[in-house]
């Protein structure tokens, strides 16, 4: 469904280039003529926002690296040097640090949008799986980035997470020491995390290219979940999607700016302004907010290895989502039961996030166990069964029909969405 390009290179230079490398045609067909469903709502603007966030993180990160020193002795002070002495260093650092949070906020909205509208279903399985890979890379990148300021939370987060590998039977300790490059979290770990924190964003960028490529092969899903059937169902990417994405991006930047300029340390932890001290454990070690649900799952299982397995399984299960959901209808709009379970899942994830921020004691542990169990039940039991027992509502015959207000659906009963082009 890549746009049939009508691109005509203008001028001799562009014609010369187009005959040798059809770059103009590629850009034109991908970002100008590319047909997007005309009924996309604002939840579809977060792909563009995420692209912006990746670029913003790379640009600010490259500047920060010019002034940062990745040694356990100097890392903390070099971050403070950026905050004090580098021209607008405070701006770059706060934009980068809060940018991580904004990146995750956008990606979580993007993922839940995909869950709600069934964007992972045939023929978008590979598109979805590439997205989960990006998410995993983002988590690794964000975690390593959090370690770099070498504050108390940096140090102890690195200690807790790298220690998870010691749960692996037989080879656990050897793997952990290999990761550390020694017998404790220290200089070698900081230096390799720095190296990887610089590398992974470019790997993300590579997978993003695949993600966008896959998207342009199968076309965008839309709020009805019905395939595009004719030109009446679509509008050109430019100007329609561009201006809509642009408007939402600016709104997103207002939220981003609120954090950067007015409450830049709100999303961080005050302990990370204490230099790393291997001899003093903070009273509560907590990760950044975007890892809290996974942290809750990790601690919900009384067995260390079991906790690690459950935490990774909670993400791995997403890889199998296209086949776990047995319903032929994509959009939750026409799935009354699924829609309710979707919102229960959202509340479950927020609840896990809250529990991840609380000490693992008393009622918090029990609640975390119940929500962890529910998280897996949602994907492994509810979704497969729901497709078999749920009676979906009538799906509109086409996107353009659904856009015309008050029009009754042409076909009664649900119609299996057939692939189109």
């Amino acid at each position, binding site marked *: 469904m890549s746009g049939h390009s009508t691109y005509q290179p203008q001028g001799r230079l562009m014609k010369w280039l187009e005959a040798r490398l059809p770059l103009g045609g590629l850009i034109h067909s991908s970002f100008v003529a590319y047909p997007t469903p005309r009924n996309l709502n604002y939840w579809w603007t977060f792909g563009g926002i995420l692209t912006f966030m990746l670029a913003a993180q790379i640009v600010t990160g490259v500047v920060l690296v010019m002034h940062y020193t990745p040694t356990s002795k100097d890392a903390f002070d070099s971050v403070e040097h950026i905050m004090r002495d580098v021209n607008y260093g405070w701006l770059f650092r706060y934009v980068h640090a809060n940018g991580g949070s904004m990146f995750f906020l956008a990606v979580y909205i993007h993922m839940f949008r995909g869950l709600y509208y069934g964007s992972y279903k045939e023929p978008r399985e590979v598109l979805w799986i590439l997205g989960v890979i990006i998410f995993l890379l983002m988590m690794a990148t964000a975690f390593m980035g959090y370690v770099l300021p070498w504050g108390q939370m940096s140090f102890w987060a690195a200690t807790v997470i790298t220690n998870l590998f010691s749960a692996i039977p037989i080879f656990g300790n050897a793997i952990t020491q290999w990761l550390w490059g020694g017998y404790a979290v220290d200089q070698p770990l900081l230096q390799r995390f720095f190296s990887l924190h610089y590398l992974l964003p470019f790997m993300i960028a590579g997978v993003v290219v695949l993600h966008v490529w896959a998207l342009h092969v199968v076309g965008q899903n839309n709020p009805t979940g019905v395939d595009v059937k004719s030109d009446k169902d679509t509008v050109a990417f430019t100007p329609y999607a561009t201006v*809509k994405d642009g408007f939402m991006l600016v709104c997103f930047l207002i939220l981003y*700016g609120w954090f950067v300029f007015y409450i830049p*340390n709100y999303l961080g*932890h*005050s302990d990370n302004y204490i230099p790393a001290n291997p001899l003093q454990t903070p009273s*509560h070690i907590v990760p950044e907010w975007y890892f809290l649900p996974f942290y809750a799952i990790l601690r919900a299982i009384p067995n260390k290895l079991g906790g690690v397995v459950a935490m990774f399984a909670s993400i791995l299960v997403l890889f199998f989502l296209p086949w776990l959901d047995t319903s032929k209808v994509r959009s939750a709009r026409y799935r009354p039961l699924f829609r309710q379970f979707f919102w229960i899942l959202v509340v479950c994830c927020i609840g896990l996030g809250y529990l991840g921020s609380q000490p693992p004691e008393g009622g918090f542990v029990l609640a975390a166990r119940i929500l962890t169990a529910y998280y897996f039940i949602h994907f492994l039991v509810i979704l497969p069964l729901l497709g078999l027992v749920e009676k979906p509502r009538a799906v509109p015959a086409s996107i353009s029909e659904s856009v015309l207000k008050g029009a009754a659906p042409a076909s009664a009963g649900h119609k299996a969405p057939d692939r189109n082009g």
Partner: protein
Amino acid sequence: MRKLILAATIVVLSLSAAPTAFAAEATAKPTRQSWSFAGPFGLYDRAQLQRGFKVYREVCAACHGLKLVAFRTLASPGGPGFTEPQAKQVASEYRITDGPNERGEMFERPGQLSDYIPSPDPNEQAARARLNGALPPDLSVIAKARSYEVGFPGFIIDAFKQYQESGVDYVYAYLTGYENPPAGTTLPPTQFWNKYFPGNRTAMRPPFQNDQIEYPDGTPQTPEQYSKDVTAFLMWTAEPHLESRKRIGFQVMIFLLVFAGLMYFTKKKVWSSVH
């Protein structure tokens, strides 16, 4: 549904503020003070920062360092507002170890603007040996390195109120939070009871008494005022670019709001032919 999602995102966003390092049951919650640098247009009170620096030099500096603060920043815009000659004068009153010289020896010289405030002890061991085993933390970023638990739903409201002063509220509370230990508790002479300190037992003696430091401008010479002034000063040492951050932030916000308005109407116009 949309409202639900919005509420959900806000909750998720704000969760990180819930945890905090201080969970000791007996610890009292600091009272929120009014600070001149709070809010979207907050500015430092120059006179207060100068008084705070005086308090630091005459009392705190006996044990605590400010190793990230350079003398030149005393005269930087958005700071205590000393003139450059004044900052030079302050710097010259410190002795800085420099070297090695051409004979390979370290030597002492008066401080210059480019120097950083020297710490009272050369290293951690020296500090502990001098102070009954206690280690006074460096104060450069202390105003951002301390906090207290706000709890739900207060921490969400704080994001909207732009409350970012939990560090200074804690430091002020700590400086003024000394009291007699509860009946039945006896403390060794090297420990003091502070109702805001996690665990309540702190190795720092109550720092201030009435009229301990002379304020030439007639400001009340009370422990509360000393605490307030030095805490404001420590906010500046922790966040020296706060004023330009808020000023640029306001410009960015105005720009983004106008830009968003223009984008909204452009979007409406472009899509009007489709709907």
